[in-house]
């Protein structure tokens, strides 16, 4: 894997095909944890961490279990249909273990990140990244890089969004538009602007 490929993967995942703004994954935490910049940063950190780890681990499973065909007694056994189940179970377990460890070893970090961890299990961006990796048959390193940059892309979108929402919080928004409605419109305009990056990676 050369630097160019890494560049293409990262720029693509962060700017061009941003998970949130272009692929529309991970909207729940995007809308839910973007009220303050501090919490948004915490969430971004947690997502980057979990996504990197999960991409690596699921890639591992994909490589050595899911895409392998075993020949037993002359019959070919193709396990690819277990992919969804294995991925989600692995991610859920991973998040739980991380949560338990964090709680034990760094209570302060747990206090700032821990509350977001459960939310991440079902954050479709994590499973999405794993699925995208598997679909594109990426190797271990590429998968991990992709997971990491997808996480960074999520963080970038979340940070931008949280920054605007701080301003929205004190704006005189029409009553009916308050809350999720204006957040979605904002996300839409932001997504539109991000389309300007199309073509950066070909």
């Amino acid at each position, binding site marked *: 894997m050369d630097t160019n490929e890494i560049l293409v993967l990262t720029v693509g995942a962060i700017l061009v095909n941003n998970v949130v703004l272009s692929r529309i994954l991970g909207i729940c935490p995007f809308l839910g944890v973007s009220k303050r910049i501090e919490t948004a940063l915490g969430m971004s950190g947690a997502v980057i961490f979990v996504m990197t780890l999960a991409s690596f681990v699921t890639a591992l499973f994909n490589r050595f279990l899911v895409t392998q065909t075993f020949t037993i007694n002359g019959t070919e056994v*193709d396990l690819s*249909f*277990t992919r969804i*189940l294995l991925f989600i179970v692995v991610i859920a377990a991973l998040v739980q273990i991380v949560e338990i460890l964090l709680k034990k070893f760094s209570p302060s970090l747990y206090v700032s990140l821990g509350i977001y961890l459960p939310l991440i299990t079902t954050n479709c961006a994590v499973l999405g990244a794993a699925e995208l990796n598997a679909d594109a048959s990426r190797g271990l390193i590429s998968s991990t890089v992709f997971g990491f940059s997808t996480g960074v892309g999520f963080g970038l979108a979340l940070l931008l969004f949280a920054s605007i929402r701080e301003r929205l919080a004190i704006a005189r928004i029409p009553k009916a538009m308050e809350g999720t409605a204006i957040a979605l419109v904002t996300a839409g305009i932001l997504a539109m602007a991000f389309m300007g990056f*199309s*073509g950066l990676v*070909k």
Partner: protein
Amino acid sequence: MKDMTKASNPFYLAFFLLVVCGVSTLVMAVTAVKTDAPIRAAQAKETADSLKMILPPFDNDPAAEAIDITSPDGEPVKLYTAKNGGLVVGYAAEAAASGFGGKVAGIVSFKPDGTIDTVIIKSGHAETPGIGTKVTDRSVKRTISDVVKGVKPDTSKLPPNAALDSYSGVKPGDAKWTKEKDAVHFVSGATYSSNAVCDLVWYAATAVRAHLAAAEKKEAN
């Protein structure tokens, strides 16, 4: 653990989870096995349908016999050979190049001598509607009045596309086609998409040419 009731006995929990996993895998596996053949068939049908549209009638299964080759530029190309009664009646090559919004993939069919016959674009979703699609799209939208009038879409022949059709009958030379010199059609304002089509046809054509040359050489040997 204070009470070792059923509900919190770790072994019971593990056992229960095991059973659930087992049963669900069973269900999945049964479905997987049962759908295995239809899935393959569906996948094969897709390509076969495209090939049928751009190749003369054939009696073999080109999709099953497809081989992977590379163009002289190093681009991967998938080659299908159509035969009728054992005789090669045409080739089709699948290649991809980057366009405005991502990869544009297409299949190019060739006469047995390597002359381009027909070009179709399989996936050009990301090209801008109205700009890029001018280059890539062969589809004709069914209109509501057709539906009301009951006019059935004509599926027997491909809808025309000036840009794609301009490659028909061309045989690749040594230099790549350009807008200025060659007859091939570049849609102005959609340079990226035109370039992508041009690139992918070029990859396919040069790969087929190389393949034919190699085959000839082999035969000659």
